[in-house]
């Protein structure tokens, strides 16, 4: 168990300051993040004389690794900070570790880190028109600052974006005065620099990561998968990864990668799976037994899905996934259980029988399963040895409705010789059975989980139909991946407009011969020219 201690880091820094920075810089050892700050950042940032907050602007803020990454990027690209890429990584690590956010402080806003852009937020009205008209709620909600720092953030905005007060929702009100006098004080109250959660996390034992982990997720275009991820410690919170597993259809999957952890729980990995370059942005729970987050394409962050990693160390017992998570009454099918410490014959609940264990590993079990014709429609708990997981397998009679997820989504035109690539969007169909009331779309519907579907597009409304959006805005493939049209004015279109569009994505599930369809809304819009790690 490791502890991140700002105090000890400062003590080391203090010692080095006494020893003389010049002497140290000449030595063979690379400088620490703290030393780099002392040497390279104090050209502009003043020393406050306050040991608990030693540098102006820097020491009065806490941010996520991505938050600090953006700050450091800005310092180099706009403010002429003279630090190398290696030094930047050192400073990022140091600041994320010593001035990060506690796990509880990122809860509910992790989508901002996970680069999932298809989420409709419901921001506090106090922030909706001031901050969230440009940013996601996660952008500011994942920062902690002193009151003075929130004030300076307003000043920063005016310096960086001088026309800010002329925007719609700004020019009809005293924007600057509202920002300084009402919003900055509220931010300081809602997202304060000093919190009990951060104090407790600084003092807490931190998770360890050099274990075997069972991972399960979904790769758009490839499908569901599960694998064992072996994590080897390389020192300084860096890890080497080896991954071997299977897609849901049995095809093998393998790869390797590198990971780093920040703040004791923020896991960031770059990996290559079957030749695909992927990223993991995960958070470990405080016990260090599970990591959750998102796995996505390195070159197309929008293509990804939620992912879970279950620690599979000695004594760990868990079922994290059941694939598929549904079985129809009176049918026989294969089911895969994924988890850790799987031992013994699984029990899948009333009316569901294990006919045969096809393979039995401690992290993965393949079963041939049959549901009785009379088995009641509903969710079943799963038991494997001492593990019991509630409501993991659904028995259903028929697919009563299909939900296409994400329900609201954005894709962006791109390419065509322009510097910004297309932003695609990917969809999945989630099936539901009617509950006891026999009516779909009510509170007692039973979620069956993801189901294979066929995909089509249609115009969302009359305007989209008139503008022939369906012809220009893009296409969807058999895997539910939408590829938008080329960027730039299109002379064929009314007013030579871009290949934008307002579409419905229709996912149809075959339910024993009949088709059950659901729809999602897709806006195909223009490029995002300014991209950030946290939008």
């Amino acid at each position, binding site marked *: 168990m490791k502890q991140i201690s700002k105090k000890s880091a400062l003590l080391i820094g203090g010692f080095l300051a006494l020893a003389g920075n010049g002497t140290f810089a000449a030595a063979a050892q690379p400088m620490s993040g703290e030393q780099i700050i002392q040497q390279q950042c104090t050209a502009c940032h003043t020393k406050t004389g306050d040991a608990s907050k030693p540098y102006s602007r820097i020491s009065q803020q806490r941010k996520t690794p991505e938050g600090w990454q953006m700050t450091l990027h800005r310092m180099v690209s706009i403010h002429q900070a003279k630090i190398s890429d290696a030094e930047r990584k050192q400073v990022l690590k140091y600041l994320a570790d010593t001035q990060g956010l506690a796990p509880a402080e990122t809860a509910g806003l992790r989508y901002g880190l996970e680069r999932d852009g298809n989420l409709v937020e419901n921001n506090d009205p106090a922030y909706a028109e001031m901050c969230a008209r440009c940013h996601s709620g996660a952008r500011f909600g994942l920062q902690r600052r002193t009151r003075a720092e929130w004030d300076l953030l307003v000043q920063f905005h005016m310096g960086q974006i001088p026309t800010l007060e002329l925007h*719609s929702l700004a*020019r009809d009100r005293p924007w600057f005065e509202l920002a300084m006098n009402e919003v900055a004080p509220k931010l300081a109250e809602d997202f304060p620099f000093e919190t009990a959660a951060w104090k407790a996390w600084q003092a807490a034992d931190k998770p360890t990561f050099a274990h075997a982990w069972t991972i399960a997720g979904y790769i758009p275009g490839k499908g569901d998968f599960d694998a064992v991820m072996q994590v080897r410690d390389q020192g300084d919170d860096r890890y080497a990864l080896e991954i071997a597993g299977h897609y849901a259809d049995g095809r093998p999957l393998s790869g390797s990668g590198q990971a780093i952890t920040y703040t004791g729980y923020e896991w960031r990995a770059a990996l290559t799976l079957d030749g695909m370059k992927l990223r993991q942005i995960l958070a470990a729970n405080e016990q260090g037994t599970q990591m959750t987050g998102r796995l996505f394409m390195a070159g197309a962050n929008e293509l990804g899905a939620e992912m879970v990693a279950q620690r599979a160390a000695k004594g760990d017992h868990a079922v994290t996934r059941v694939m598929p998570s549904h079985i129809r009454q009176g049918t026989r099918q294969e089911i895969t259980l994924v988890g850790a410490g799987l031992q013994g014959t699984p029990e899948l609940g009333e009316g569901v029988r294990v006919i045969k264990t096809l393979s039995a590993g401690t992290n993965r079990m393949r079963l041939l399963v049959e549901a009785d014709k009379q088995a009641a429609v509903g969710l079943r708990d799963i038991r494997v040895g001492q593990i019991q997981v509630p409501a993991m397998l659904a028995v259903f009679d028929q697919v009563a409705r299909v939900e296409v997820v994400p329900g609201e989504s954005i894709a962006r035109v791109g390419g065509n010789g322009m510097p910004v690539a297309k932003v695609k969007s990917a969809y999945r169909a989630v099936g539901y059975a009617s509950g006891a009331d026999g009516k779909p779309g009510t509170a007692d519907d039973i979620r069956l989980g993801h189901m294979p579907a066929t995909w089509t597009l249609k115009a969302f409304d009359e305007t989209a139909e008139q503008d022939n959006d369906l012809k220009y805005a893009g296409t969807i493939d058999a895997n539910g991946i939408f590829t938008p049209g080329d960027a730039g004015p299109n002379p064929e279109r009314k007013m030579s407009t871009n290949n934008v569009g307002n579409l419905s994505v229709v996912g149809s599930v075959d339910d024993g011969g009949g088709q059950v369809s659901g729809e999602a809304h897709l806006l195909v819009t223009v490029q995002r020219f300014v991209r950030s790690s946290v939008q």
Partner: protein
Amino acid sequence: MNTKKSTTRAWLALAGLGLVLSGCHSSVKQAASTASHEYLLTVTRPNQLQVIDTETNRISRSCDIPGYFGSGSIATSPNGRIAYVLSNKWEDIYGFDITDCKMVFSAKQSTEKVTVKTFFSLTLSPDGKELYTIQNPVGKLPDRYQVMQPQLAVFDTSAGFDVQPSRRWPVDRRITKIATLASGEVVLGGADLKAIDPQNGKVRVISKLQNWERGPRWLTPDAFAVSSQGEHVGEYIMPYVTAEFKDDSMNFETADWWWGMSRVDLSTGEVEQLETVPFQFIVFSWVTDPHDANIIYGAFNTLSKHDIKEKKTLAVTDMDHTYYTINMTSDGGTLYVGGTSSDISVHDPATLEKKGSIQLPGDMSTADMRLARLQE
């Protein structure tokens, strides 16, 4: 400014000032019809002032402007000879003789420690001796920014190059386009329309917008203007959008949405504020017909013609693409629709029919498209 008489008077007042400066002794009426030539001025990327002859609709000359493009706002001297251009990302001002592209004036507003931006706010005193800008300064301290008080800056146009302001007066935040009244006061287009006396900094409200007192049934107007025009009739228009609610529940869905404007007669200083036409489509800038102050034209994705007395849209035509700005010859014979891209669309005000197109060597983006009536 409801009659033809008043708009004509406004124009004659401005034309007369130019003639006095140019030393011409012929009557104003004669000058207006014979001794001047109207040019359309705009700025295109990468950064050139384009001087376009309104008789031929061809580019007469292109003047290179120092610095990076932006915003391309233009103010012209009363004699129509000098065009002052906002350049270098909304910071510097350069003055050019439009007859030969000779640079006659320059001012850099920013310093090493203070970035000064001007949001389209550029105008000249009635005698052309002073140039006014609204400066929005932000201090650049080593580790922080410091927002400073906006101010009206007064420049002596005869001072040549690297001119520093001779006077500065504090003004409100959020001021965009400005214009000068015949009295010498400068109209400030901010939250409310105000006028400032550049001699003493005294400010008075001339048309309330954000602080209008219409009660809860009216939405606070969203007033905004990027481009300047109106020199063909001597007017300043600050357009706005508002909503009239059916009841105190402020239901946006059932409200009546309106375009409106605060229109200033620059010769008399008279201001009228009125809702013009129902909000049916976006209009970015407006001009008044010189023959009838009740007729206005607007442009964005459409070019439209409206009778504001009857609150009726008389004609609408779809444009080939989005255009930010509009202007009109002072005889009311031609409408120019420009901005955004690299062409100016030429239209007949009577029918809105497209008569031609002026192809430019680069995009106009946010640039103004202004008339210069050159005294010959």
